[in-house]
């Protein structure tokens, strides 16, 4: 009798596994179809893939050392020798923009991967325990949300001292509350579901329920928010760099490069406009991708 039960149990399990596998494959296939249908999202995906490839292959793609100053060729216009021209210190702008892809991606991913887990933990904790804990944590996030994001980031960046590391911390500090809000809302919506109650009755600890059963349910909306946030993070970082409060010279950060070229705007337009154009394209890529991901993960869209 007992053996029988175990046998049927294992059989069930492999069956469940197989079904789960099939469902996942179907999900990925559906997602691909939706992706192919959404041309704007395809453009966004290609822009971001291109950015990642440029960042990885920067040493191969660059024609010059991004820090190398060739003073005799300073401020030369775009040509075959210097695809995008040179800046006021005779550095090759094309190579600097190529290496700038690394800086931008690093900042965006670090900020996202610092602020997202912090926000999620705070949000899930607030939503799960409720009561006083919820009240305290949410009022805390309200306080951070009371500042316009860029202003809070600038204030922290200025206080911590200029530099790209401090800029990353400053932007992350300004960024976590939106994840906390979202994770809390998602937690509240799944918290009272029957299956959570069953797991609870089976004696699972708070930590186990929060980590194993609630957080995964929050992930899809958190991922959507994260992809939509990437553009804002890049714009904030570039703004800090432009004001002189983020990355410091001679780092090839795009915002800083725009600011460097300001005084040569009239006669050497390329020095400041080209790095800014790179920012525009990349932010647009992330926005298109983020919108697309939101549509793909939206269950209403999937049914059609």
């Amino acid at each position: 009798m007992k053996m029988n039960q175990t046998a049927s149990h294992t059989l069930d399990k492999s069956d469940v596994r197989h079904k789960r596998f099939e469902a996942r494959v179907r999900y990925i296939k559906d997602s691909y179809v939706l992706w192919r249908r959404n041309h704007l999202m395809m453009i966004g995906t290609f822009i971001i893939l291109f950015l990642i490839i440029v960042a990885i292959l920067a040493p191969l793609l660059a024609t010059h050392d991004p820090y190398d100053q060739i003073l005799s060729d300073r401020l030369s216009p775009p040509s075959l020798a210097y695809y995008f021209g040179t800046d006021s210190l005779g550095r090759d702008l094309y190579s600097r923009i190529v290496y700038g892809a690394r800086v931008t991606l690093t900042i965006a991913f670090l900020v996202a991967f610092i602020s997202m887990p912090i926000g999620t933990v705070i949000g899930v904790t607030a939503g799960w325990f409720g009561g006083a804990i919820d009240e305290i944590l949410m009022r805390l996030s309200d306080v951070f949300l009371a500042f316009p994001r860029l202003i809070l980031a600038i204030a922290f960046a200025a206080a911590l001292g200029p530099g790209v590391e401090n800029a990353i911390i400053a932007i992350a500090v300004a960024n976590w509350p939106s994840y906390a809000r979202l994770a809390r809302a998602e937690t509240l919506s799944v918290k009272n579901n029957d299956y959570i109650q069953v797991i609870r009755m089976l004696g699972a600890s708070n930590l186990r329920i929060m980590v194993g059963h609630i957080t995964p349910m929050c992930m899809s909306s958190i991922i959507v928010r994260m992809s939509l946030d990437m553009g804002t993070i890049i714009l904030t970082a570039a703004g800090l760099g432009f004001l002189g409060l983020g990355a410091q010279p001679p780092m090839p950060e795009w915002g800083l490069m725009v600011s460097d070229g300001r005084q040569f705007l009239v006669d050497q337009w390329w020095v400041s406009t080209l790095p800014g154009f790179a920012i525009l394209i990349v932010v647009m890529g992330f926005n298109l991708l983020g919108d697309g991901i939101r549509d793909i993960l939206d269950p209403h869209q999937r049914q059609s």
Partner: protein
Amino acid sequence: MVQYLARRLVTLTITLIGIMVITFFIALVVPLDPLAAIAGPQAPQETVERLRKLYGFDQPVYVQFGRYLYRLAHGDLGTSFQTGRPVLEDILHFFPATLELATLALAIAILVGIPLGVLSAVYRNSPLDHFSRVLSLVGVSMPVFWLGLVLMLIFYFKLGWLPEPGRLDIMLIDPPRVTGMLLIDAVIAGDGEVFWDGIRHMILPATVLGLFGLAGIARIVRSSMLDVLSQEYIKTARIKGLNEFLVLTRHALRNALVPTVTIIGLTYGGLLEGSVLTETIFSWPGLGRYLAQAFLTLDLNAVVGGTMLVALTFSLVNLAVDLLYAFLNPKITYTE
């Protein structure tokens, strides 16, 4: 409604206390000794010590915080290291210029954004719709400071259609300061030339500042109009033979505006952020540029005071938006 308002006021008070703690914390994390910076590198230790005593930096943190709250309660934000004047006075001096610019920017954003969003939804998938969607996408993806530089390059340096950065031509004399807002002061002084020149100076910075908001507003109006237009009651209104313009404005737009109100509140925050960058580029003598300078030179009192006032206004605007939202959408108050 009263209950809702009371709850909002309680949370607002908590938020305000939090804002004070955070701004104080900002001043606390400064690793450099700002006093050494003002005193100059050659200053003897003695001078620095005297300054420390003068500004109260020699006291323990909780005493400093207590003093900070005490000073705030008396409307004293300390003295700016840069200008040597009280920070509050500085802020009041620079604020009208920013308010004037931001109001014009918001006006552009709303007056262009709402019609664009409505037309985009009504003529869905038409060339106009595509144009407006591209504009929204570019608008939210554009680095403000870069757009400012490019427009300046085209319209000032290349075409010469618009005047140089700044608030007024150097040959013109500022009208007597009444409100601090140039256009209004020019009207009061009856000075047509200054008024016209002031407007020409404002076009570029206001456009740059307004574009971000315009993009967000057009986007949300489009999507909420599309939602509303597919509702049954719109069909009913059309079937009963109502004029299409009335259907759109009185029946559809009114409901579509509810989510838009929230976006306008957020846009206001965007304007405050954008003014720091825009004013820096266009040499606009407003609060944004003052703050940027304060941040760069680590003018601590100005940083703390300025950040706090920005957060304060932003919170009040958000409160106003929430109340307006509750007013426009009675369902919220009934379920409260």
